[in-house]
């Protein structure tokens, strides 16, 4: 399966996520992906996530693909200009990696190389447009590509908890108009926040996968509330994590409730397990999705 195939089939779409390491040994990352084998339609590979230098998304995708797992290549606009972005899109297509998630990217100063030059030559809407042009057989400058053009399935992101929501929805509509075929969202902890977002967004015409970050501890929840834009973990959830005898079990229970609360409004779920892919199976089985 791939995200493209899942969309075509009309099924409830499931994706998960892994992050390449700071180093050149990707076995652990592939193992993380392995935990989702047969369970998900795509596994996102993050692109220099949080502006912390590490191995690339493309090579991470290749490793997953080698293992027979379905990669989704994340692509941020922070580190590459339009020459490099288009070139890397072509390179991904060469290797058969065609599910691509287009993102703006966190700012450079938030990561571990704050002195780096921020690029942002394109924004996420323009990156989707660029990929779409390649799919039409020409580059951004209008030059024709040699041979058959690449066929990407392009995705985009949105934060349903953003405030104000209106400009975010405006941009989301532009991303879809540009050619995004699916949406993955920032972490959601309240189904009603997601429902409100879907309501305000109106008819998007593409599947929206609600994002879920599994809580590992009360401390992590507090951290997210403080530092992650537009993400609010309810106090009740934090209290449950705090009181938990078995944190993994409680986290799975909370996640199952969330997935079940989101199922009717979302067209899929995007899990961001942050190293807890081994627990994704339990969640999906409990929900009857595996």
């Amino acid at each position, binding site marked *: 399966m791939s995200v493209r195939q899942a969309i075509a089939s009309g099924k409830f779409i499931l994706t998960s996520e892994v992050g390449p390491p700071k180093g050149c040994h990707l076995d652990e990352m592939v193992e993380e992906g392995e935990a989702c084998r047969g369970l998900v339609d795509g596994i996102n590979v993050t692109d220099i996530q949080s502006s912390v230098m590490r191995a690339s998304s493309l090579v991470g995708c290749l490793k997953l693909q080698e293992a027979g797992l379905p990669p989704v290549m994340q692509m941020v606009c922070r580190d590459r200009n339009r020459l490099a972005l288009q070139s890397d899109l072509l390179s991904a297509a060469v290797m058969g990696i065609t599910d691509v998630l287009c993102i703006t990217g966190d700012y450079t100063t*938030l990561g571990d190389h704050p002195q780096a030059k921020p690029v942002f030559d394109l924004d996420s809407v323009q990156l989707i447009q660029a990929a779409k042009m390649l799919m039409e057989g020409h580059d951004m400058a209008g030059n024709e590509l040699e041979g058959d053009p690449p066929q990407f399935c392009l995705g985009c992101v949105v934060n349903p908890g953003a405030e104000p929501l209106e400009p*975010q929805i405006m941009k989301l509509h532009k991303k879809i108009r540009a050619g995004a075929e699916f949406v993955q969202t920032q972490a959601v902890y309240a189904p009603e926040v997601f429902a409100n977002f879907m309501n305000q967004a109106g008819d998007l015409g593409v599947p929206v996968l609600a994002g879920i970050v599994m809580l590992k501890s009360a401390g992590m929840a507090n951290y997210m509330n403080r530092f992650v834009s537009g993400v609010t973990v309810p106090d009740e959830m934090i209290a449950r994590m705090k009181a938990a005898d078995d944190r993994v079990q409680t986290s799975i229970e909370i996640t199952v409730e969330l997935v079940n609360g989101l199922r009717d409004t979302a067209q899929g779920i995007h899990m961001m397990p942050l190293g807890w892919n081994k627990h994704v199976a339990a969640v999906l089985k409990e929900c009857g999705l595996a």
Partner: protein
Amino acid sequence: MIATKPKDFEELLNRLAEADSIYIVGCGDCATVLQTGGEYEVAEMKKKLEDAGKTVSGTIVPDITCQVLDIKRLLRGDKEAIQSADAILVMACGAGVQAVAEIIDDREVFAALDTTFAADKFRGGEFYEWCSLCGECIVDQYGGVCPVTRCPKGQLNGPCGGSEKGKCEVDTERDCVWTLIYNRLDKVGDKQEIEDRMAEPKDHEKSTKPHEYVFEARRG
């Protein structure tokens, strides 16, 4: 105007270690408004250098230090003080420093300031970067608020996902420029237009450095 801020004095002294005698050039324009290179700051620098054991052979504050021909005339009048200096310290923006270096080509020229941005000024001591001299002005497409400059990521099609409660992910004290654009378009302009329009990527060919204008001046 061009904003500048003083370099760390100890760092500057290290740079000037080889120079016993120093000639100081300030600027009567931007650096005076920014209080980094006006008469007052030049006098202050002179005293600090003397306290550090240096000799200051002379000081001058041209009206506009980046006016190359004007300061050429001015500096010619202070030839002796300049000749007796081992180094020239310029308290102006990078354009001023290079203007001085262009004219005084037999002495090492040092920058006392870091040049930071093209500034919009409110009251004294309050300066903001609202224009980044990108080479193609598009502010009228955004209600008069520039997303190229006032968004760290230069987002042209809407806010990034880091915008939180109307504030910027890079500096949570600062308004997200898209909040400002929306507020402005609520009052004047056409919000629908900005929602409908797919903004094209900036043309960076227009900002290829170094820029130059050489033309037959119609006046002055």
